[in-house]
Every structure is written in structure tokens, then in C-alpha cells.
């Protein structure tokens, strides 16, 4: 396999090339619309949908598809033998600061990398189906975002991870602010970026403190390489405040219940193609950070704050579910359901045992696979409902659009974790893990499973069945839209039939990741619950 750097930087390179070269060929004939809003409106009518294939869009598509191919290669090439890193690239980036450019594939990130490339390829394809104002810049930012997210997943150096983690927000800032929906796109994007960067910057300070304190512990040269840091555990007191800083960054990103304030505005303003990857992938970086960085580096703090984190997760599940079945904006239904789903993932991670963590990892992939097609379906539905994304104005489409309805049904059933779906396996493992750790929390969390079926079915019924909405024009999915949707649904079905595919490959890495936290938990178990109350 080629080095990981190619996978990371290829999308960005395609974006840069697409931005620089003059648009020589214009495949699409109609490029009359200039603004994104009118472009979106024109796409409502099948006859007038001017899919202006811009050069930069095609280049972006090529880049993201090649990246997808590479990541499939890494999955196929993955040896599920042990937790060791594979395909390691290790170059000293800044020797003075001990920062390495170290990348590696492990059982923790291999499927998330696959998910990222898949969703980006689907989203870029979806973006190519309509014309954008200033397409060169749009695809440049889009591709830069893919590179940054891949970098965050693959980084095996704490400072590098933080750099990618912060960097990936910037393209989204431009994407939302430049191509988002009025009226509040600029306000929403500034709110989103400040919210998430506040967490990230706290993490920056915490990460530097980790490196410095660990090097003082070891008495050696400062380093940020994860494996070296793991060998130099910090004192419990330092771990605790550093843990809180990291948790702030990751919980905002997910988003978890009290820190989700940016989510509704941000989701409403985002172009839906961008939202597909934002909701599908970026939230996973936070969860991945807990699993790959926080648990191995700060095991004692993780054990110390276990109950707090479980309660935050529980609150997210209940709050997210409750709002998901009261919202009428389809985007926000999906958005709040993500809050609930991410709550489940957090729950699994902080069960601090292998079952919970494995369930969480599987659920991260599942949720990404489900939420991206869900948003795309919302886009299709709103085009059929005269541009409205309100559930009350949709409805009655299923009869005339059987293919779309069946695809949507598969996605909706996966969302509610129907037995037989991979989401069911994920949630089952999570709850099993929590059951072993904290019985009472697991019992309450079960209610979240029930609520998921309520909001998922409510969305499905409201959009597809019921009375035909006032402005609804039913028609089935087009082949081009099907090209985006069908592969995603196919992967959902594949994982539903064979979840072992992912579980088996990630098992040893997950066990290693939670081992020290699990160990820290066991002897302290009686006290850790008591010492939670501040």
C-alpha cells in the first residue's frame, strides 16, 4: 500500500489543483444561475436541474473516489492480529518541540477512515449534482476538509492530532459562511466555529501540558508521540484537569447535551451536502479522540470521571431523543437524533470495558453511514415538497416513489436500531458494556432505544405517508441521485449482514485502548462513584 500521506493529502491536492487551473471544460450546459440559492431552487425542477460539472468539481470527485479506493485498500490490507500500528509513517516535523509527523492505521481508525472517505465521496458526488457559486473555492474548502479530517484520524502524535483537529474546522467555516442558507449563515458559522474552537484551544493547552509534564516525568526530551506519552503516565491530579480540557473539546464537537448550542443554527445554515459529512464524520472525531487519546493517556482520570461522563451521555440521549420527536424541521430531527446517538457512543466508551468500547466504535461507523443518507434523503424530499424541509409540508410521496421510499425505510430502520441491523449490534454491545459497569444508567439508557424508534418512524411516516403535502410533487428518485444513495445503503446492508467484519478487525486495538482505564477502574470502583460529587 502507498504511504498514508498520499491518502491524507491527495484530496487537498485535488482541491488546490482544481482551484488553480482555469476551468477549461464545462460539461454541463446550463450555468445561468449565479447564486447558490437560485442554483438550489433550479434543482427543484427535474428539467431545469443544471448539473454544471465544473472542472474543480470533477477533480474533487476524482480525488475523493481515489481516496476511497485507497482506504478500502487499507481495510483489506488490515492485519487483525494485534493492536500494533500498521503502515506507519514517522518523520520528525519540529524537532525543537518534539513533534513528529507520525501516522498509522490501527483497529480504532481504519473503519473511521473508510467511513470518512466514503461519505466525502458521496457528498462530493452529491455536490456535483448542482451548480455552486464560485465552485473552485467551494471544492477547495471541501477537499481541504477531507484532508484535515483524515489527518485527525490517522495522526499518532498528540500535537499533530490537535493541529488537524483545529484545522478541520476552518474549511467548514468557509463552507457554511460562503455557501450556507440565509438568513443566518454568517452568524451561524461564527457561532459554530467559536463554540468548537473554544474546546479545541483548551485541548491545545492540555496537550502541551501533557507533553511537558510527561517529559518532566521521564526526565528526557519533550515528545508528543502517543506511544511514548503512554509510557509516561501523568500523576492523577494532572490527569484530571487535562482530562476535563480534552473532554470539553470532544463533547462540543460531538455535540453532547449541555454543549450543543451551536448545533441547531449550524445545521440549519449548512448546505446539506456539507452537512452530510459534517454530521457523519466530524462528530466521530470527538468520539474517536476519547477512545484513542483520552482513555490510553489519562486512564485514571477517565475512571475518576466515569460517572460524570455517563450522566452527560445519558442526558444527551434523553434530551436529543425528546427534541427529535418534537421538532418539525427534518434537519433538526436528524440533528437531535445525532445528539442522542452520540450519547450512546459516549456511553459505550465510558463503560470502560471492551464490550462497550467495541459497540461504541461500531456505532460510530453505523451512525455515520445512517445520518449521511438521511440528510441526502431530506434534500430529495425538500425538492419534492417545494423546497420546504418541514415534515408537516411533506408527506404522501411513498406511493409514487417506491424506490426512494424503500431506501428511506432501510435507513430509517437502521437509525432506530432494528434487530438485524448493524446499529442493533452496536447499541446492544454498548448497553451490554454499560450494564456491566453501571446497571442503573443502562436501565435508563434503554428508554433511548425506544425513543429512537419513535422519532425515526415519525420522520419516515411524516415524510413518506400521511396526506399529500400542499406543494408536494411526487416523483421517484433519479438515477443520478440514486448513485449517491445506493452505495451508502449497500454498505449499511453489508454491515447489517456481517458486523463481525468490523468487530473482528477492531477487537484487539479496542481492548488495548480501554485496558488501562479498565484497570484503573477496578480497584477504585467503590470510591470512584463516591468521589464524583464535587
Amino acid at each position, binding site marked *: 500500500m502507498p504511504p498514508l500521506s498520499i491518502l491524507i493529502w491527495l484530496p487537498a491536492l485535488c482541491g488546490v489543483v482544481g482551484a488553480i487551473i482555469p476551468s477549461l471544460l464545462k460539461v454541463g450546459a446550463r450555468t445561468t444561475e449565479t447564486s447558490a440559492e437560485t442554483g438550489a431552487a433550479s434543482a427543484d425542477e427535474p428539467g431545469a436541474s443544471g448539473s454544471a460539472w465544473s472542472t474543480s468539481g470533477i477533480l474533487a470527485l476524482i480525488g475523493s473516489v481515489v481516496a476511497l479506493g485507497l482506504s478500502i485498500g487499507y481495510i483489506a490490507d488490515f492485519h487483525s492480529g494485534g493492536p500494533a500500528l500498521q503502515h506507519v509513517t514517522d518523520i520528525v516535523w*519540529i524537532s525543537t518541540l518534539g513533534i513528529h509527523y507520525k501516522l498509522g492505521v490501527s483497529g480504532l481508525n481504519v473503519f473511521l477512515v473508510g467511513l470518512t472517505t466514503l461519505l466525502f465521496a458521496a457528498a462530493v458526488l452529491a455536490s456535483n449534482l448542482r451548480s455552486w457559486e464560485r465552485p473552485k473555492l467551494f471544492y477547495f474548502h471541501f477537499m481541504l476538509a477531507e484532508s484535515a479530517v483524515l489527518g485527525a484520524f490517522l495522526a499518532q502524535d498528540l500535537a499533530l492530532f490537535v*493541529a488537524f483537529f483545529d484545522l478541520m474546522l476552518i474549511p467548514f467555516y468557509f463552507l457554511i459562511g460562503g455557501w450556507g442558507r440565509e438568513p443566518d449563515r454568517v452568524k451561524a458559522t461564527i457561532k459554530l466555529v467559536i463554540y468548537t474552537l473554544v474546546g479545541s484551544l483548551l485541548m491545545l493547552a492540555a496537550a502541551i501540558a501533557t507533553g511537558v509534564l510527561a517529559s518532566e516525568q521521564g526526565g528526557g526530551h519533550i515528545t508528543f508521540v502517543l506511544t511514548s506519552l503512554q509510557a509516561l503516565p501523568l500523576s492523577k491530579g494532572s490527569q484530571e484537569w487535562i482530562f476535563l480540557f480534552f473532554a470539553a473539546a470532544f463533547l462540543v464537537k460531538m455535540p453532547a447535551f449541555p454543549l450543543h448550542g451551536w448545533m441547531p443554527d449550524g445545521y440549519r445554515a449548512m448546505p446539506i451536502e456539507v452537512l452530510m459529512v459534517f454530521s457523519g464524520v466530524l462528530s466521530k472525531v470527538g468520539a474517536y479522540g476519547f477512545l484513542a487519546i483520552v482513555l490510553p493517556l489519562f486512564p485514571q482520570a477517565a475512571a475518576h470521571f466515569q460517572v460524570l461522563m455517563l450522566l452527560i451521555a445519558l442526558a444527551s440521549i434523553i434530551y436529543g431523543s425528546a427534541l427529535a420527536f418534537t421538532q418539525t424541521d427534518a434537519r433538526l430531527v436528524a440533528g437531535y437524533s445525532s445528539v442522542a446517538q452520540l450519547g450512546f457512543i459516549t456511553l459505550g466508551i465510558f463503560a470502560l470495558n471492551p464490550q462497550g468500547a467495541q459497540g461504541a466504535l461500531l456505532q460510530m461507523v453505523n451512525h455515520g453511514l445512517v445520518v449521511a443518507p438521511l440528510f441526502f434523503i431530506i434534500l430529495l424530499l425538500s425538492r419534492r415538497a417545494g423546497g420546504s424541509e418541514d415534515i408537516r409540508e411533506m408527506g404522501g410521496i411513498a406511493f409514487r416513489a417506491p424506490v426512494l421510499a424503500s431506501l428511506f425505510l432501510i435507513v430509517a430502520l437502521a437509525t432506530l436500531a432494528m434487530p438485524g441491523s448493524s446499529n442493533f449490534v452496536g447499541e446492544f454491545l454498548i448497553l451490554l458494556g454499560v450494564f456491566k459497569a453501571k446497571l442503573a444508567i443502562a436501565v435508563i439508557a434503554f428508554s433511548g432505544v425506544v425513543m429512537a424508534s419513535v422519532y425515526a418512524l415519525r420522520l419516515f411516516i411524516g415524510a413518506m405517508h400521511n396526506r399529500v403535502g400542499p406543494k408536494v410533487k411526487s416523483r421517484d428518485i433519479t438515477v443520478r441521485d440514486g448513485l449517491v444513495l445506493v452505495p451508502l445503503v449497500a454498505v449499511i446492508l453489508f454491515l447489517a449482514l456481517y458486523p463481525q467484519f468490523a468487530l473482528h478487525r477492531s477487537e484487539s486495538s479496542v481492548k488495548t485502548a480501554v485496558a488501562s482505564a479498565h484497570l484503573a477502574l477496578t480497584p477504585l470502583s467503590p470510591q470512584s462513584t463516591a468521589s464524583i460529587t464535587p
Partner: protein
Amino acid sequence: MTLLATATLKGPHVDFAGLSPLIALLGGAAIVLLVGLLSSKWARAQLVPALSLAVLAAALGLTIWQWGEEKSILAGALRIDDLALVLNMILIAGGAATVLLAWRSRAAESTAHGEWHALLLTSIGGMFLLASAQNTVLVFLGLELLSIPLYVLCATGYSKRGQHQERSLESGLKYLIIGSVGSATLLYGLALIYGATGATDFSAIDSALSTGNLATDPLTLTGIALCVAGLCFKASVAPFHQWTPDVYEGAPTPVTAFMAVATKVAALGVFLRLFDVAFINAQTSWAPAVAVLATITILVGNVGALGQSSLKRMLAYSSVAQAGYMLAGVVVATKLGVQATVFYLAVYVAMNMASFAVIVARERETTLGDSVDAVAGIGRDRPWLAWPMTISLLGLAGIPATAGFIGKFYLIDAAVSGGYTWLGVAIVVGSMISLGYYLPVIAAIWMREAPAGAGQPSSSSSTASAPTPKAGALPALAGGSPELDSDAGPLGVDPSVTVGAPVQPHAPETTGPQPEVLFVAVLAGAATLFFGIIPQPLFNLVTHAGGALSGLF
């Protein structure tokens, strides 16, 4: 008689090689001043700035020539070491960028080019002195040599008719008064230090403070406190920063850019010299106080910048905050701290210059002056201005892939290693607040339409209400050359005023292309990006600089 003869022979040995960068600057200033007296317009408007650049290039060459020479010259009054030389290089970079930004500026023209550039070079000379001073008398001398030309430069007005001149005069006067208070405070502090230790040499002060309990003596501590206050005036550290926004806003933009970067470099340089060499033994006394000052500065600067509609005021407050970040490197008094400060100073110059260059360009192109509206919508049609400004603002906010991120990383690293973890946290809290004012500007650049009043770069649509045959025809002909500017002076400029249209306080200065401003913006933006991705060359440079202060860990 014989006594007198021996006395005159006893002058110190002068190492002219070590002194050569300073001599080049001050000699060059004299030449520039004289060339500025030539009657030819071309000589004044073109030759003078070119000569100034040549002088700076010569100073740079001599600085590089002296590289690696660790020596004290002039009887130990100056020290030519890598710290001084690195600071010199940063100062030269800032000075050269200023000369380029001022090339077409009316500020230089209204003062006569020669004087303006001579003042600028003299001021840089003062900064050179500060960067290598080893003696409290020289610190004061350098500070005054730096400040007095700056007082004048601040007041070099913008246009003979515009209201800008008054603001510029006000700015200069304000700076003069407050700067003098700062200088006086510092002088008083240095006098008290002399009283306590009986020495003016840094090394002598250091050894005096290391013996007995002099380091905790009230006289010494009062002296140190007054020195802190005096230098804080110069570095615009809160609560001594109040002059900064007003002066920055009122001064001509090239001068503002120069003040923002070069003065800060010099002030932080002397902070490093004075506190990490002379007062190092009293570190336990002054470090917590300076750390608190740094925290206050970070908060005050960042909060003050929120909601500013004038870009220069915003960058003024931002520079206050950045001074707070950099003080963290002084506080810890370690080699790592010195390196982090010098590193940040270098990237700070690049980041600020990019922004100021864009402001200069837009001030000349539009009628909106330095307001945020002036840069609104430039992402659409002026990518070569939009990208440098975006990169520079992201860098100032500390976003990865810019040098600002590495710089902040280094400073926090130094703070945590030096036992000031909370100061590191203060830096990131400051960065968070700073997003609240950097991001809206970036949003204006990329996500807003250009306001209707903004003039287009190609022709003077800003004054379209009035017939402007001259201004409209000439740019295509002469490309915004200074001849155009002066010819347009009596006739073409501000036709709106004569016609009776609403008076525009910021009339566009030039409508032609400004390659040198663009060059500064692109170069500084590219440097910000480059050192964010490949910072190692800069690290190698500052490692030498940190090694120069041998008394530190």
C-alpha cells in the same frame, strides 16, 4: 596638561565591525535625508525609498556578516550576539515592509520624502541599540532614539485638506505625551536601580543583585517596578496601553504597521535583555507581577478588540493582546522562554504586515478608510489581497497550518515548562476571545458583498457622482505613479469636495495598481503559511538567539 592628554587617550576601543549595522543605518539616514533635498521629483519620490531599502539591505548584509560573533563592544555597553542579530533581522524586515507600504503614501510626501525616511531609519537605529544594549544608559538612549522619530512620524498627516491631518496630529501629540511619561518612568526606575546597585552595566547589576539581600531590597524592587511600567508603556501592555488604539488609528497606516511590529520587537527585546539578564536574580520578585500583567493584557486586549469597526483599532487591541502572549516568554526566564518570544516576534511581524498591507491597499482604493467594510467582499474579486489577510488573521488567532499556531504552541510550551501552566491557559483563553473579532473580519472578506460605497480598483467609481476626467483617465496612462499623485493634487483629488457632494473623510489616495503593497501582503502571508508548515528554519535561528543569554536554564 599631561593629565588631560592621558584622559583623551583613554577612550574605549571601538569595534567598528560589530557596530557596522548601526553605522550603516544612521549613515544611510543622513544620505537619505540629503538625497531628499534634491529638486527632482523623481529623486524624492522614487530614489529616496529605494535608497532606504538599500540602506536596510546593507544593514541586513552587515548583520549576517556579524553572525556568530559573540562579543561585547564599546567597553561592554553593547553586546553583539545572536539574539541581537536575530532581532535586527526582524526589525529590518519590518522596516523594509514599512518603506514599501509608504512608497506611494501621502504621509511620506507631506513630510518630504527624505525626512520621512530618515526618521524611519533613525528609529530603526534606536531599535538596533535597544536590541543589543548592555547598559541602562544605552537602554534609555535607544528608547529615545526610537521614540522621538516615531512621535514625528505619527503626526505626518494624510492629506493637507482632509480631516485626517488633525487626527494624525492628535495621534502624534498623544503618543508624545504618553511616550514621554513612559520614558520618564523608565528613567526613574533605572536611576533607582543605579542607586541600589551602583551600576549601569547589566552584568554589574546582575552580580550586585546576586549578593546579599539586594534583590529584595525595596529600593531595587521599586526601581524594577518602574522599569516594568516604563517598558509596558512602550510595549503597550495593559494597563499602560490606553494610548495604543487612538495612536494606531490616527497615525498613517504605514507608520501604524511600523509601530505595531517594530516597536514591539524592540520593547520585547529590551524586556528580555533587562529582565532575563540584569534582573534575573530578582526573578522571584518580578515574575509573578509580570505574569499577572501579561494575563491582564491578554484579557484587556482581546476584549477591547471585540466589536471594533476600525481595522486599525482592532489590530491595535490585538497587538496589545499579542504583547501579553509574548510576555509569557519573558516571565519564565528560561532559554525556552526567550526562544519562544523571539519566535513569536518573528511570526508576529509577518502576520501583522500582511494585514496592514491589505489595509493600506484598501485605504487607497476605497473611500471607506480602515473600516471593516473596506475589506468586505474582496474575496470575490481580489484574491491576492483576500488570502494574505485571511491567513494573517487566522495566524493571529493561532489556527494550525499558520506560523501563529506554532508560535503559540511554543509560548505555551515555555510557560508550562517554566511552571506557569495557568499563564498557558490564559493564552488559550485569550485566543478564544480573539476568534470573536478575527472571524467576523474573515466573514466580511469572504461572505459579504462589497458595500456600495467601495470604489473599484480599476476606476474611481467612488467619486462617480462628480465628473472626474483627470482621475479617471490617468490611471490607465500612468499606472498610479507619484507623478500622477502630485499632478492630481491640486486638480483631481477630492473633486467631490468642490462639487459639494458629502465630504468623504477617507478619499482614496490612488486608484492605480500598487505592486509593492501587494508584494508585501503576499510575501508576509506566504511566510505566515510557510513557517506554519515548515517552521524548522526559524527554530534553528531562534535557538541561536536563546543561546545568547547564557545565564538562563
